[in-house]
Structures are given as C-alpha cells and as structure tokens.
C-alpha cells in the first residue's frame, strides 16, 4: 500500500506533463495545418537548408 503514496503522485505528475505539452502544442499552433504538415514531410526542399522565417 505504501507504493501508492509514490505511484499516485507520479502518475498525476506524468499526466500533468502531458497536459502541459498539449497546451504548449495548442498555443504554438501545431494543430493549424495537420494535412499540410503530413505532406510537407515528403518534400526534401528544406532538408539541407532550413527555411528562414
């Protein structure tokens, strides 16, 4: 039973990290163009010279 005192806070903490990551992704507009991002990965245009903007 003592393990619970570790496990529960740890699981809540990890879940919280996931939640914060989701918020960050949301705020940095990563859900803006899911279809475009899926296609962009196929293009090798900026492989050697990352786009400046």
């Amino acid at each position: 039973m003592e393990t619970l005192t570790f496990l529960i806070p740890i699981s809540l903490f990890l879940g919280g990290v996931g939640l914060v990551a989701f918020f960050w992704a949301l705020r940095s507009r990563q859900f803006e163009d899911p279809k475009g991002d899926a296609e962009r990965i196929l293009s090798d245009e900026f492989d050697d010279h990352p786009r400046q903007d």
Partner: protein
Amino acid sequence: MSLSSAIETGTQTVNGSQAAQMDEHVSASACPACLAAPSAEDLAKSGDIKGARIMLSLPTAHCAVCISDVERELHKQPGVRSARVNLTLKRVSVDAEPGVEPTPLIEALDRIGYEAHELDAGMLSATETDKRGRDLLMRIGVSGFAMMNIMLLSIAVWSGAESATRDLFHWISAAIAIPTVIFAGQPFFSSAWASLRGGRLGMDVPISLAIILASAISLYETSQSGHHAYFDAAVMLTFFLLVGRYLDYRTRAVARSAAEELAALEVPRATRLREDGSEETVPVGDLKPGEIIRVRPGGRIPADGAVIEGNSETDRSLLTGESLPVFAGPGSILSAGEVNLTGPLLLRVTAAGKDSSLHRMADLVAAAESAKTRYTSLAERAARAYSPIVHLLSFTAFGTWLWLTGGDVRHAINISAAVLIITCPCALGLAVPAVVTAASGRLFRKGLLIKDGTALERLAEVDTVVFDKTGTLTMGAPTPENLDDLSQEELAVAAALAGASSHPLARALFEAAGAMGVAPTPLDDLREVPGYGIEGRLGDQVLRLGRADWIGAEAGNATATHLRIGEAAPRSIRFVDSLRPGAEEAITAFKATGAEVWLVSGDVEGAVSDLAARLGISHWRAGALPHEKAELVGELTGQGRHVLMVGDGLNDTAALARAHVSVSPASALDAARTASDIVLLGQDLAPVSDATRIATQARRRIKQNFAISILYNIVAVPIALIGLATPLAAALAMSASSITVSLNSLRLK
C-alpha cells in the same frame, strides 16, 4: 483481476481511438481553431514590419508537390516576402511588401496550373473564431486528462478496493473531477442557463443536470464512505460531449470563414468627378444621385446611372443572364453591377445605395428568404423529443424509489442520477456532428464548401434541380463557333482587328485565330470605336469588325460579331459559351437519380433552347426576370418538390434564397454566394451531383446513429431504473455507444 485488466485495455482503446478519430477529423475538414491564428500572429508581426497580407484560396491544391510549387512560384514574384500554404484550409497566406496586389499573384499561380481566388484577409483576422475553437480544444484536453486519471483510479475501485483505499481513491478522483467539471463543463452550463432563461428545454439542460448531479452525488457519497461514485461518468460525459461540440463548431466555423470572405467581385469604390473635373475615389456608399462618376473599361458600374458621355458596351450577364453585350451610349440607363467593356463612360448617378437596383435585388432576396420555411434539422427534432423524456424518466425514478423505500432520499437521488447518466446524451451529441464533419470534410476535398450545417440534410431531400445558364452551366466565356466558314484571308484580317480590342468577343476571336496558326494581316489606321467595334484599313479598303447595326449586317439570335471587308457582304462569326467542365456529368448524374432538371435563364430563347438540347434538359425557360426565377422555384416548391438551385448571378439571388438548398460557384457575385448554402470552390460542376449522393448517405448515417443510441438506451435504461446500474455499467454504456456512433460516421464514403 482479469476483468479489471480487460477494462483497462478497454479504456485505453477508448482513449486511443478517440484520439485517432479526432486526428481523422482534424484532417477530414479544415481546422477552425487555426482560421484566424495565422492572421493574429501576423497582425502582431505587422506592428513592426509594415506590409500587405494577401490570402488566396487554392481549391485544387492537394499534395506535397502543390505546396512547394505554389510557395516557390509565389516567392519568385516581386515584393513577396514569404508565402505559406495551409493545405487543411486550402489557402495560401502571402506576406508581401506594401502595394503588392493579389491579381498578379493569382495570374502567376494560374500560369503554373493552380486556380486561386482572393480572400478578404481583413475579415479573416477580424473573426474571433479561433479563440473559441482553441478554448474548446483546451477544455477537451483538460477533461481528457482528467478522464484518463479518474478511470485508472476507478478501475482499482471496480476490481475490489475496499474501505480506506476506496475512500482515498474516491477523494483523489473528486479532487481531479470537481475542478475539471467546473472548468470543462462551462460551455454546457452557460448554454443550458441561456435556454432555461429563454423558457426552453434544450439538449444542454439534461446534460448539465446529469454532469452536476453526478458530481454532487458522488461528492456526497464519498464523504459518507459510500460504495459508488460517478466521477468517471461525469468527466467522461463532459469529454465526449465536448468532442461533439467541437466538431459541430468547426464545421460551422470552416464554412463561415472561406465562403463569406471570398472577396473578388464586389465594387467597394467608385471614381467620382469633382466640380472642377478632377477625380477622387470614394466608397460606393457615399455616392448620391446627381453626382458624376467615371467608369473605365473593365470596371463594374457602382451605381445606377444614365450615360452622359462616351460609348461602350456593357456585360449584364450577372444581372440578367444575357450573354450578349449591350450597347451603351449617351442616354442609356445602366444598372449597378454591369461591367463596362470597351470605352470609358461618364455616368450621372440616378440611384445609389438603398435605392439602386442592386439594393432592390437584395429586398427581393429578403422576401424570398422569409417565404422559405425554417428547416428543422434532425438534431433539433431529436433534442426536442429527447429532453422531456429524459427528465420525465429521471423524476419518475426518483418518485418511485422514494415511495418504494419509504423516504430514502439518498437512494432515490442516486438512481435518478444513474438514469440521467445512462441515458447518455453523448451518443446523441456525437451522432450528428460526427457525420456532418466527416461528410463536409469529404465534400471540402471535392471542392465544395458547406456554409450551413443543415444544408447537407436538405441536400439529401432534393428531387428537382434548377440550373442557371450563363456563368453556371456555361463558363460565361465565349468561344467562336464557325471560324471554318471564313477564308484564311478573312480570318487573318479578323484576327488583326480583334487584336486591337479588349472586348471579350474580340479577345476570344483573337485567341482562337492564334490557336489555328493564323498570322494577323498588318493593317493601317487601327482604331476602336467604343461601343461599336474596331475599324482598320488595308490599302483603300475599310475593314470593320463589330456590332451588326454598325457593320450593316442582320442581327441574329445568337452571340455574334460581324466582319466586313470593303464593300463585300458582311460575314458573321458566331460564338458559343463554352460549357463548364463537369456540367454534362452533373446533369446525367442528377437524371440518373430520378431528379427533374430545369434550365432557367434570363438569356434569349435561342441560346437557352440550344443549350437545353445539347445537355438533354427537357424543362427550360428563357428570358426569365429575377422575380420570375424565384417564382418558378416557389411554384415547384408549392408542388411539394424540394428544389436545388444552382446559380451565380444577381438575378439568381432571390431564387437561390427561395430554394430548399442552393449552390453557387466561387466566381459568383457576392450576393449570390451569401444567399446560397453551398459554394463550389473549383471550376468543375461535377462535385454537385456527388454532393447529393454524399448528403443522402450522411442522412442515413445520422439516422443509424440515432438508432444505435436509442438501442443502447433501451438496454441500459431499465437496468438503471431498477437500481442495478453501477458506475461501471454507466461507463461501459457511455463509451461503447459513443464509439460505435463515431465509427459509424467514419464509414461515410
């Protein structure tokens, strides 16, 4: 233990598939959360770097190559700082130096084979839509997080945690659930409150009641060391319903965005002449009767007026559907919305703003809209039946159990809460939005934009299709028909004359002759006589290309221009309007489904009957005035038919508004697009018939989804009523029905 691990994996699949499904939806249709996002960011940026932001709609973009092609081409244009394609929304946002106009960019994209339309960037950034979308997503994230954690704790309880451990787990669940419900449930609470204040019993009232009651009872039970707590159910309910709400919201936001913000054709500005003869540019709204305005060739006439100086021809096809340009000279009365073709005109404004013919057309639309009965969607009908039944069931359970147990309020409330939770509005809340999102995503990929959520349902009922001619079935761009009748010599002369004008018929003739490999004969004294045609000289022969009365030829029924070489007999060159691609397919497909197809146009009888014969349309009407078109639609509706109107002109607007459901191409006038439910983004007309097929399928799926959730309720409600529903049963019923409903929606082909 085996049970609990089974449930655990079950729960994980729930979360997994839900996430997968959301992903699918995100890609299925465009993401509204990001609609205004780029512009918001760029607004912030433009604070320090001044520049133009241009938004273009790209209906045909669909792959990685399109992205790099479009971006590379735009980067090559002078003044363009950066361009980024958003494939989900099918638009490109261009950051450019001040003064860069969208037209050359559109032309550049056209040259490499991409169709583009201008979007009103100002309106995009002004919308608050993305805030709401992100807000909903945030709440979904929070409730999803809480749901997973509570579910983990609940599994321990279900699999047999006892006494102090169970209480501890319940308390931790409560600590997660209560703030979550308060934060994530707000959209439901506020809309339930609004509907209660309005004296209505919407879908959100039982939802809010279930969420609040479940949380309150669970909190009470926990404090009394009770066995059952419904925290998981309360949070799960919130999560699933938020997903449904988000899908619903996004469908509407996506529709609103592009359809209404396609800027294009409206004339917001006019060139007014001051007393001293100098020019100034003013908003159209400021024009007053009696003022003098100048309209250059190619410009749209901003207000009704009488010509006081200049000769030209005007294209009235968007107003009346006539394909033949009309002569305009001093004394001619012109209406706002016509396009000036050849010569500059000075107009004395006779009516502007509210009194102009444009505005009278708008009144016609308003009248047509009020004549149309409001459509009750399937979701509304379901909600209307659902809310009273649920409340009734829950209160009956409460009363009956109070009486049966001789006044055990705690037990009675527990059961009525279980009933509220188990009746599971989440399947109902997902049943419609999930299907509509899947269907509109599919249509969006075909180049159709659904502006109104119920348009799909209405489209499914269509049994009569009314097409406009000019600009809808045809491209509104003429091509010469009988060039083979002319000798090489005549052709070369005609091409030379045509090359000197920017009149659409002349351009078409010049291009067609060029395509045939005809080199224009060099002519002397080439000059355009605005409103009449082009004159030139070859040796001592006078050559003329233009209107029949000017040439001395007989005016025919069809669109034509006439050529006269010296004293020889005039030759006429007839033009046909080229068919819009996909028009034939669309009509064949509609006929195959047994729908009646009509062709209604303001054009002359000859042109209309020709086209009707060419496309095999047996019902047609020519020379129809705007209100006659609307009346025809009304007449057909009166016969109990459900009319789909497809049109693009101002003269179609009233008919579009009157019809059961309406479609207009992206090239249509603003007013027509606003009046219609669906906008066709590409050139091709074929998707329209696909749309009805998908709509029929979508309606079937919605009904199936209702059947599924009713079936679950038929099984689960009696269990809840007799008091056997445990939190585990509630969780199972809820997730199972939500997931079946979502999966069923994704079956849409």
